[in-house]
């Protein structure tokens, strides 16, 4: 049972949240001009790194808001949570590599 620090409400049990997979993937605006392959990658494929991962959560049983988190997929430790539209407090190199 993770303890997740909702940026709007504070720390709450994982059972109040739902998971939303990888964060910072914008829905393509030019889908018309994308190949089947490119579109399928957007719809179906997500990273699954061993290490730090930027991912989405929604506080379903609380404020109902979506936000992002950085989680270590090995230990499940949540390194940080941050609001939508904010930058992840890790660099691209850190993602997928253990701090």
């Amino acid at each position, binding site marked *: 049972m993770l303890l997740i620090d909702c940026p709007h409400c504070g720390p709450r049990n994982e059972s109040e949240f*739902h998971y939303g997979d990888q964060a910072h993937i*914008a829905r393509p605006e030019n889908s018309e001009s994308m190949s089947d392959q490119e579109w399928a990658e957007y719809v179906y494929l997500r990273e699954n790194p061993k290490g730090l991962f930027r991912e989405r959560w929604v506080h379903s049983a609380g404020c109902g808001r979506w936000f992002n988190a950085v989680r270590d997929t090995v230990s499940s430790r949540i390194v940080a949570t941050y609001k939508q539209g904010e930058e992840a407090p890790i660099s691209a190199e850190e993602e997928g590599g253990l701090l």
Partner: protein
Amino acid sequence: MAQKYRLPEGGRVDRSQPLRFTFDGKSYEGFAGDTLASAMMANGLRLVGRSFKYHRPRGIITSGVDEPNALVDLYSGTSKHEADARTTMAELVDGMDAKSINNYPLLKYDVGAVNSIFSKFFVSGFYYKTFMWPKAAWLKLYEPFIRKAAGLGTAPTVPDTDHYEKHYGYCDVLIIGAGPAGLAAARQAARSNARVWVVDDQPELGGHLLTRSATIDGKDSDAWIAEVRAELEAAPNVTLKTRAQAISYFDMNYVAIWEKVTNHMANPPANMPRERLYRVRAGQVIIASGSHERPLVFADNDRPGVMLAGAAETYVKRYGVKPGKRAVAMVNNDYAYGSILALLDAGIEVPLVCDLRQEPDGALTQAVKDRGVPIRAGHAIVAIKGKNSVRGVKVAALSEDGKALAEGEKPASQACDLVVHSAGWTPAVHAHCMARGKLAWSDDMSCFLPSEGSDANPNVSAGNCAGQMDLASVLTSGHEAAGQVLEALGMPANNAPAAPTADPEAASSTRILWIVPGEKELGYGSAKHFIDFQNDSTAFDVQLAVREGMHSIEHVKRYTTTGMATDQGKLANLNAIGIVSEALDVAPEKVGTTTYRLPYTPTTFGVIAGRDIDELLDPARTTAMHPWHEDNGAVYEDVGQWKRPWYFPKKGESMHKAVLRECAAVREDVGILDASTLGKIVVKGPDAGAFLDLVYTNKFSSLKPGKCRYGLMLNEDGMILDDGVTSRISDDEFYMTTTTGNAAPVLDHLEEYLQTEWPHMQVYLTSVTEQWATATIAGPKARDLLAEICSDVDLSAEAFEFMSWREGTVADCPARIFRISFTGDVSYEINVPSDYGLHLWNTLMQVGRKYGITPYGTETMHVLRAEKGFIIVGQETDGSVMPFDLDMNWIVSKKKGDFIGRRSLYRSDMSKPDRKQLVGIKTVDPSVVLEEGAQLVRELKAQPPMDMVGHVTSSYMSPACGRSIALGIVKGGLAAKGETLYSPQPDGKVIEVVTCSPVFFDPEGSRQNG
């Protein structure tokens, strides 16, 4: 004579409080402070159960949580029934009723023991090998046999009337275990500002000190425990829980603790729960969970009267019971001699001790020697005499390498009624491992010890479970663990006590023999070397598994079922690892361990469920009209959590007849349906129209206020998510309906896109499902009926067209009337604020009487919509169906821009001609109603397998069509309408069908538009 094995004095039982209990119907006496196991032992009850596979007679092996054999059913047939209770953990209660398990008809003469005679056939992988072929034999022969032979206790027959609670806890330091390490840690943590929880599974604090007392800080350990207890109880920051077992350790130091609150009371107060589950979030955890004594693996080491040395010591010292009168011991370490001393002190004769070590050393060994007990170095017990109870042993010298009897050795017999043995102690690393900690093999100690922890779960192991075995270092490690976690928390102890001290023990040797040889080679003869005493797996089974190619310990576990019993391998696993490592000739570290699964010990369903049972687990949602449905005999269908009327039978009427009657009423007069359960979402804001254009396949921004439109919603993969009618209330407000079961998922889906993809859009979403009650009236007389109770809306077909809505007053209530139809007949969905729902319904029923108004349920609704070929999301669709598959190209806008799922519709896979597509289905014999889910084939063969090309999704007898009708999805079905298909039935018969248009009734739609 009562309690003939009770010592005249000593132990922690209260001889002034005798308690009665029964075992298999016979009455016995024990004392307060006994466990059921110690009380049974005091009465000379040795044979307490039978094993799982061979039904071998079994007795008590341990004195604690690791007991694999001494399981009973408690309070059978009553509301307090507890299956497979461990007698070693069940505190004796006056009036306790215990029953032996896994034997029929009598404990002493068990018919299942015939398995024992055929044990040659029960080797590793037996279930996999034997029960494979022939297939027919499985149902008739093997399955009933396994069912009868397997299983432990019996399931309860009456409901549990006790109540169970759940409780959340928060602390800075959680200490698991209140033995010497846990108490040393607790004493220091209590003096800090940290909030401290201390939990222990026993009724008394002290852990192993209750068995083997010692001198701590210069005083008797009992006095030391009392002193620490007093300090903990007085400290306001400490929560102390006894009879509380930490069972599971989850991420981020979230620990589940199972407390037995009133189990030990004969007459518990009614207001108190039987058990309680604490879920504690801790800043830091100190794991002081101790260790389990390891059995030696020797011939017939399962016979009643063979037990672990430490357990025997516990029965003597803690419970004042003699486990036997004459004991032979087999040990490989010095610590176990302390147990032998306890037996001697209790007046138990010890004619000899077999020590596997060539040169037994150590202070306790010397003390036993000084008492005149012969110690046979390099000797072993190679055979046990007696079946239902030990009658003696055979002892022999071992060869140098310990793998066989010494050359020319003739085993010597020794009579005894008790055999105690010890292979040393295995640290209980379960909590550390559940917390994602890693293990490292210790060559010195021949066991796995905690190494790295996980940074998500800050904890420290202390005492035995950290590999600290002598009391002095146990105390120090507990004390230091507390210092370490308090420092990490920044909450140092004020006035910190000095670490408690005890006399250090001198080092001594041990000798590991994973298998103690018997008279015959393993696998020969009838003797068995057991590893897992409950699942009956033996050393030979493990060796065989390795020979047959199972080289991973996880495979060996499953192939032999070693460690899969209710004790979860607490006794078995390390021995199995040792034997595998020897068989493979690799280091035990390379063999590794199986996963330490939660819970640590079998837990009652009651405490897991807590109060979350019946309606508190799954509340029923009811509509405003529900009281009327109740009064009028509705039969319900559960849709999500909603109770929806399924049909309304008249007295003595079958479902079939009721549905025919309800259908006819809608087609001929007027029917009334409670449609309040449909999901309703208000979509409001300046961008509401543009937002809906993005979430539906068709355009909504062009919809005029006062109009309604059917919409299809897709997931990004192009598959249908939901459908429903959305109406425009005003320029900036829409009223969306969803299917009953999908209301919450659709709202989540919309919220997600609104928040994460289009946060710039000014739109608010509000669920109003509970705010509106909806009565739908449908049928040729619906308009006349509505006109009688609504005077402020022009209901004429010209003024109030199909697919539009009006605001007005119905039955004196403010109402929104939607002219939409799910039946194919003229239909009005009348929405009023929920509080008026029942009034509206009553008025319609009353006024409608002269029109023959007939309430109908979901079954009739389904028949009527199927006659019209209307789909139900989740019935005709299953997450792999897209609009073109339903021939619904008309609803997918080509002109408007992007919408969710649009790009996926044009992937090449979506235009494959053999996609499953919606068709109508008519049976050649119109009276035959297909079963929903029935498979369809194009090419009929004499017997399966046949190529399945689709299946039936909906199927009914249609009164309007005068025949059966069905919908289904069939590969390439759209292009092949009119083809003949077959539905092979389980009984070998075949139903012949012809596909057709899915619209069976009024294809022009003249009725609904009229």
